[in-house]
């Protein structure tokens, strides 16, 4: 299966959009080789602004640029954008509803060898908490490119979450369409619903296949937009299967799992398990091995699904 990192998709999408829309401007904080904004820079050097290792200034400056009609994509690693820049994002961009796109690469544990200081598993929680912020975590190359375009066309602040690790392309079907705030039902089953986001979606599809071999039919829902959450789709599926398993490469605190738990708790109490980073820091190692270590893998999705079913 073809694999590509969603950060690469981000860079490629920027270059495509740059040709179409003259008011796109890309900001980076000395990581353009890693965030892949250098792809845009090669095509449009005059519209790529490096702010050096100073994320706070970059984020607030993005707000200023948007006030004069540019659509800035401010880029860094998730840790330094959502993490270090939280208060700048909240006050310079969120509160005044500036039309700024925050593009974070190197999200989650799959950053790999750089270790815990660079593995941001808290960004979804931080960004979800800002009123009016749209939070998108695409599942593959095709969805990531579609998300960047949708982010440009949407008026208002958006947080985009990309990964470093190459991941399988799963959305290469002719009828694929990306709609902000709309989840995608990838498989239909009667026994359990797996609600996944980002690079956990391909693992969830694999798990559904393995469950099917055991005679269990699983619905897999891809939630690319974590906020606003597609409540209707999740509630409908919860009503059908009565069992929900959420899967995300993020802390179980404040992410997709907690968003789904809040929804179900208030509107349709349903048996629920959350797969995610269990309130701990990561460590150095190869990305795939780390995902396994923290239970973000096909094997654990199957295991937890069976657990719920056997309860």
């Amino acid at each position, binding site marked *: 299966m073809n694999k590509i990192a969603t950060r690469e998709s981000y860079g490629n999408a920027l270059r495509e959009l740059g040709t179409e829309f003259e008011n796109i401007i890309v900001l980076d904080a000395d990581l353009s080789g890693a965030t892949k904004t250098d792809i845009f820079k090669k095509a449009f050097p005059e519209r790529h*602004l490096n702010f050096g290792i*100073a994320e*706070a*200034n970059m984020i607030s400056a993005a707000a*200023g640029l948007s*006030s*004069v009609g540019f659509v800035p994509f401010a880029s860094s690693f998730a840790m330094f954008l959502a993490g270090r820049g939280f208060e700048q994002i909240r*006050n310079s961009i969120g509160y*005044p509803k500036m039309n700024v796109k925050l593009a974070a690469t190197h999200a989650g544990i799959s950053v790999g060898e750089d270790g815990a200081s660079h593995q941001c598993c808290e960004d979804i929680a931080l960004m979800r908490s800002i009123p009016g912020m749209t939070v998108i975590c695409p599942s593959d190359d095709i969805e990531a490119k579609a998300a960047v375009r949708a982010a440009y066309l949407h008026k208002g602040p958006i947080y985009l979450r990309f990964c470093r690790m190459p991941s399988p392309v799963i959305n290469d079907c002719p009828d694929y369409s990306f709609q902000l705030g709309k989840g995608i039902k990838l498989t239909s089953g009667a026994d359990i619903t797996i609600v996944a986001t980002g690079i956990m979606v391909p693992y969830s599809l694999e798990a559904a296949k393995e469950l099917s071999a055991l005679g269990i039919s699983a619905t897999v829902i891809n939630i690319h937009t974590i906020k606003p959450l597609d409540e209707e789709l999740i509630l409908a599926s919860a009503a059908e299967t009565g069992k929900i398993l959420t899967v995300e490469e993020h802390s179980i605190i404040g992410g997709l799992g907690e968003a789904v738990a809040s929804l179900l708790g208030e509107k349709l109490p349903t048996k629920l398990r959350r797969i995610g980073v269990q309130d701990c820091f990561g460590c150095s190692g190869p990305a795939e091995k780390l995902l396994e270590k923290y239970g973000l893998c096909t094997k654990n999705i199957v295991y937890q699904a069976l657990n719920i079913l056997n309860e």
Partner: protein
Amino acid sequence: MTSAEKRELINFATDMRMCIIESVYSARSGHPGGSLSSADILAYLYKKELHIFPHEPRNPSRDRFVLSKGHAAPALYSALALCGFFPKGDLLKLRQMNSYLQGHPNINTVPGVDISTGSLGQGISCAVGVALGGKLSKSGFRTYALVGDGELQEGQVWEAMMSAAHYKLNNLCVIIDNNRFQIDGNISDIMNPDPITDKAAAFGLNVIEADGHDFDSLEAAFNAARRETSCPTCIVAHTIKGKGVSFMENTASWHGKAPNEEQYNAAIAELSSLRNGGSDE
């Protein structure tokens, strides 16, 4: 500047100061000290320097002003109201429930506010973005940012200055309201930012010192800033915290509290005498 022009500026600044006291008194909270210290700078900007359109506040060719020290909102609101951006009477709704005049400036609710501010250190960075946008879109507008001297303790201010110099933003003018006080005391006792002029110069800005209460001095500084072609300008304006209300002058305790009725009456009486003194000319 003719003496009539100067008298007009003094009257405008005095009216601003009365509006500041009235709105903070009406709100029963707010920041009079740093609003009064910056009143003359804002008076000069809004009467002489800024190219603005009070009846068309979003006109794209307007000069931009960013109040990085957002807690001086009463000063900005007073200047905007006196210029006709919104009714002067609304100033009494400062900080009230459902008022568009929020405790700190909001770009979406207040006509004439170009950037939301309030969290120190961020406004100057926003202004860098605005000025960069002006350059990239080849617009001729200029961008001004008023920064507090206590605010210089925020590291982000220096990130902003570094980037303004790096991108050669000669269309950006940063003004530092150097009133020497912050909420906890004298700036040199709390966390000394001195020498401010040397530091700003070392970061690549064209530094000009001015008397922030003397309109000739401010005029010379802003004119020199306009002549600068290679880098951003930083005007270090020496001011007096609480300027114009004698019992508020040079005290940290008037940074963020409202006067009581007696203090309000005394302040208005003192400012009225200045205003009346002017109208005799």
